[in-house]
């Protein structure tokens, strides 16, 4: 099959680039009003393109669809010649995350319309340029199947986010931006080394097979000799020494550390509260909504498929960290007095569920985890929007300064309640579907035990504890700081427009998740099959 022709994936991927180029040629001062519309329009077009991909997607087929592969460069590494190729395409997992990215982006852009941050810091054009760049790189991460190009996209995402935090962030934005950049970059270096090793060993950087070229995954899976593909000679002490002595284990960890920092898996989360608290609203929404998912996506896409034996060996350890993250994140979240920090730590807890689901290494766990990535993107993205809107009005992030807002803004209060409930996993809303499937998967996992599920399920209680604390303190109680401008109690049109799609998705996934499970089913099952007996 010829894969060199232009594919829908490429089109979707480069739509933000078109928007970016248009923005570059606009005048930041005279066309200020139009800029945001160009950005918003582009993100909508990208979303439409992603939906078109969904329409074209055949959920009954395993493997990549709408793929495109063009050789980019041939690198001589030692004796071998390795192809680096522009290789894009989607399976169910990729498609779902592309949909998430293109879904969150217009919401984030809408949320920044008329933000006071532009009055303060200006540079609106640059802001939207970075947004476009961010969208491009994020989509890239989710659709690329060449390790080198993946690495490029992976690193490029850092740049716009770095500037979004650094320029339009809160008081300690510089510290947060640098920390964010350095922290995630440091992890990525190990991944780069692992990528180079993989390329050198297998002679290709393509993970999937395409157009006659065998990809890394197939090589690993079809290996029939002794030991594993990465460690052809069976390790004498495989049972006891596997964790540290095998090549596969090192490669696995090389990738994992990069992803774990991004997720972040406990204890690699200490960049997160800084980045979230300092980032502008749209930055937080995208950070929580999409960027963190790159980590969990990477684990599913690369760690599990390329290093299945190491994944099995490490599963209990990483799942344990996930469980610790669930409880720890929730507990720390509960202790916060800063609303934004509270929501930030809740991500650690929620993504702990995702990690647990992934390392359950069965279909339930993986499907739940993938869907939970989307759910978390929607509900936590929504929570950050709420916090942003509060901040625009009251200019504080301290819970003690709020109170009684439900009475003053009834619609806003009701929406916030629904989003909080979705985040704490109320059945019938989206969060529950993911959590339930994950926890169910973890109980039936061959590699985990009863205790994992038991402790992780306690996280469901904890979620109610910290989210209700937030809801009670912000929305109930006495209204302490009335706004001088009464009209600000009304929601702006763009704020309502940002909430509506979120609410729709919360109920849709909650009541009819079948559509999404269908999208995932075959793709995830082919990964889960690696770990079935």
């Amino acid at each position: 099959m010829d894969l060199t022709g232009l594919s829908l994936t490429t089109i979707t991927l480069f739509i933000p680039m078109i928007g970016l180029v248009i923005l570059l040629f606009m005048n930041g001062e005279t066309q200020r009003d139009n800029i945001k519309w160009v950005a918003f329009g582009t993100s909508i077009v990208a979303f439409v393109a992603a939906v078109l991909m969904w329409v074209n997607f055949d959920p009954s087929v395993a493997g990549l669809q709408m793929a495109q592969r063009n050789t980019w460069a041939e690198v001589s590494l030692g004796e071998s010649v390795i192809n680096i190729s522009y290789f894009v395409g989607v399976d169910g997992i990729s498609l779902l995350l592309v949909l998430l990215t293109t879904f969150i982006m217009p919401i984030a852009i809408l949320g920044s319309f008329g933000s006071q941050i532009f009055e303060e810091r200006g540079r609106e054009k640059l802001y939207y340029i970075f947004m476009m760049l961010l969208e491009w790189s994020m989509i890239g991460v989710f659709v690329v199947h060449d390790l080198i190009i993946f690495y490029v996209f992976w690193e490029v995402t850092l740049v716009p986010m770095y500037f979004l935090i650094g320029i339009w962030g809160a008081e300690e934005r510089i510290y947060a931006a640098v920390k964010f950049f350095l922290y995630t970059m440091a992890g990525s270096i190990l991944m780069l080394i692992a990528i180079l090793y993989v390329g050198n060993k297998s002679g290709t950087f393509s993970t999937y097979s395409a157009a006659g070229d065998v990809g890394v995954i197939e090589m690993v899976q079809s290996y029939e000799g002794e030991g594993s593909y990465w460690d052809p000679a069976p390790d004498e002490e495989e049972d006891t020494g596997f964790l540290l002595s095998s090549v596969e284990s090192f490669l696995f960890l090389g990738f994992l550390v990069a992803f774990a920092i991004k997720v972040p898996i406990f204890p690699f989360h200490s960049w997160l509260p800084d980045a979230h608290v300092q980032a502008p609203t749209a930055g937080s929404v995208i950070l929580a909504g999409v960027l963190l998912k790159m980590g969990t996506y990477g684990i599913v896409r690369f760690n599990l498929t390329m290093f299945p034996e190491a994944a099995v060996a490490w599963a209990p350890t990483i799942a344990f960290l996930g469980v610790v993250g669930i409880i720890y994140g929730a507990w720390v979240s509960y202790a916060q007095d800063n609303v934004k920090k509270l929501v930030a730590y809740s991500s650690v807890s929620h993504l702990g569920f995702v990690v647990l689901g992934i390392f359950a290494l069965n279909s339930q766990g993986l499907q739940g985890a993938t869907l939970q990535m989307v759910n978390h993107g929607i509900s936590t993205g929504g929570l950050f929007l709420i916090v942003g809107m509060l901040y625009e009005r009251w200019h504080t992030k301290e819970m003690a300064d709020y109170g009684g807002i439900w009475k003053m803004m009834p619609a806003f209060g009701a929406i916030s309640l629904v989003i909080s409930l979705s985040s704490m996993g109320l059945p019938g809303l989206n969060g529950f579907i993911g959590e339930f499937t994950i926890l169910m998967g973890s109980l039936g996992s061959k590699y985990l035990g009863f205790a994992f599920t038991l402790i992780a399920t306690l996280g469901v209680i904890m979620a109610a504890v910290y989210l209700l604390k937030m809801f009670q303190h912000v929305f109930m109680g006495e209204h302490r700081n009335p706004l001088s401008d009464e009209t600000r109690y009304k929601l702006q049109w763009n704020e309502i427009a940002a909430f509506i799609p979120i609410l729709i998705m919360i109920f849709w996934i909650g009541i009819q998740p079948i559509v999404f499970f269908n999208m995932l089913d075959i793709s995830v099952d082919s990964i889960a099959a690696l770990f079935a007996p």
Partner: protein
Amino acid sequence: MENLPLLVPLVILTPALGAIVNFFVGAKLGEKWSGYIGCFASIFAFIISLLLLTYVTGTDGAAAVVNPPLVDGWLRIESIGLEIPWQLRVDSLSVTMMLVVTGVGSLIHLYARGYMHGDKLYPRFFAYLNMFLAFMLTLVTANNFLMLFVGWEGVGLCSFLLIGFWWDKKMPEGWKNSNAARKAFIVNRIGDFGLLMAMFLIFWTFGTLDFYKAGELPNTEAKYLAGWREHNGLADHSDDDAKSADGDKQKDDGHGGSYVCEPAGPAAHDDSHGVESGYGAPNPLASDIRAIYCDNHHFDTDYLGVFGQTQERFGTGETVDFGGFQMAFDDVIFLIALFMLLGVTGKSAQIPLFIWLPDAMAGPTPVSALIHAATMVTAGVYMMVRANVMLWELNHGGYVIGLIITLVGSGTALMAGYIALGQWDIKRVLAYSTISQLGFMVAAVGIGAYVAAMFHLVTHAVFKALLFLGSGSVIHGVEHGRHHAREHSQGQDDDDDHHDQEFDAQDMRNMGGLRRRMPITYITYLIGTLALAGIFPFAGFWSKDEILADAWYEGFQLNELSGFIAFGILLVAAAFTAFYMWRQIVLVFFDEARSEAARQAPESNGAMLLPLVVLAIFTCVIGLINVPKATPIFSNIYESYEFKHFLEHSLLSVSRGHSLDFNLLIAGIALALGIASIVVAHNVYKGKGLTPDNGDQLERHASSRVAFRLANARLYWDEIYSKAVEQPFNRLATFLADRIDWDFLHNYFHDSIIKRGFDSIAKLLGQPFDLGIIDGAVNGVAWLVQRLANWMRGMQTGYVRLYAVVIFIGVVAVILLMLLPFIQTMLQSGS
């Protein structure tokens, strides 16, 4: 008739729709129409429930499974065979619950129109009430555990919203209200955790969460029936009730005749998402099952839901493989039951999770009546009765689950009854009374008296709703009286305002003498009290007596420990019940008024009194639905055990001592005890000139002082929980957040170890590498660190734009490079 179950989605949809309308346009509709819509939705659901009742009785106990249109599937993952549908179940048990919920619910809706009159959030109140009904009906009509859980958490949410309904009252009361709401939600979540765990275990054990599969026969008792038939060498129906006394393994199959190996019944219909009737069903699945069953006397477990499989697989010594661990099937069921029990203690307010219910009285009184007395809190009992097969099998397999449940239930009944003796708040007494009565029901489940538990659930729903609504009427009256009093005394008394602040319209010390001011409220309240105290012939007499009789039978006839425990403890609790209720009657209605407010309290309006009267009438007669066999006089008039026979169609394991004759001794003991308690209470409190300052009669006597104070302090449960759970939890949270996360991980670990270490390594590497020994990867790190340092400096000195442009150029270059081969191919193919 066969198509009637198709209406069951309407039972949920109508209140849901009512909620939506009231939520979005209620404010525009105004109080009158908003109330109409709320009441209409509820009454409509009640009418549908009645129709469903005619279906179940008319088809002699058929059970139907209905897939609602539009949303028939829910959680489905094909590759692993996970299939959890939105699926509703109509059988006698669910219809019973539907009738209770919508019947009592409708009356409370009507009452609320009067009670909430003038509240500025009136439409929202009705929206919440309707939403509650929708979730509660989801809970009771669900055909699988997950849907039950949707209702389970949904009613918890509504409870949260309604307890905190008056969160914007003046502080600190408003804050107290929202605290109570939060507490209810969180404590319930602890119970939900148990239910979640139970569901995970159930899924991996049974491969499904369905109670019964569509077409599966209810009340088949396959295993035992087969054994019994073999034993008797015949395939005939047995006479019901005749064989009750001599053992535990026989089953009634006379009623409902649901086990009939005959060709499919009449009236075939093939609606794609139609009814799949329990027997006489036309669908192929049902007849397949029947064929399999009739041929082999054995079900294929693939066709069976959770409970059918439990019957088939329990005691076979099978092992369940969860992947990571293995467990004997019987042990798994035990574990499931324990986790479920945790869920029950949350929702049905049992030890140790009952602590939220007394606080929940912060909500408006109709809410207390509907949610926190009649319906929601009974969900736990309903679930256990639904899961009776598991409990029954466990009890017979030598597991102590029955004993545990009995201990929890009767312990709760006693403890809460005791606390109720020492409360001053009229609603708080009723709250503890509710906890206590729920304890009766749970204990009944524990001893295997499932029908008795359901019977008490039904009667209690009626008379406790009556009592709560009555207390609402009293509070309403006293508050109005207080307004009158204030208007009259305006300007005369300087202390008045101050005094008014502290006036508590729910404190029984401020009441008294209301008998004459509020006659209808008084009479209906009296009827409710007598019912609750178990006085003949009111509803509570029949249901409480049945629980006691079953416990007695269990203990003294079958020598089960749980029976002795339940009988002994519940008898004492019943005495407490009569005492605290009569104390309440005396304090509220007898003697002279002890406050100006009570002196001027007006009788409530018709909208509030009508439901009281209707409920009072039902309180008088509802006990007759389950008159024991051989009851003097009554058995000649009423069919005996009607309710039991009705429920038999959905309770697979009809409990052991259930067709007991009327036991005059036990009825006599219970009745005498109740009357004696009333007499004692009357003598203690009547005409003793109580004021807010001189304390309770029991407190004035040295012999009972300690006991009263303990009850008054609610046995320090709240204090214990605060010290033992809440405070350590908060302290640990602060410690984790401040010390571990911020000081250590965030500041020390990151700044001192990672960052400084990084810097010094970079410096170390930087010097020697000037000499030109370069390693790619490491060099990259050092180079990047330098670049980043530059960027950072750039940020600080304001050259952001420069660097932005540089990065842009880089990015664009990368893009072009990436696209280059692609452009080449395009050009080539073009030429």
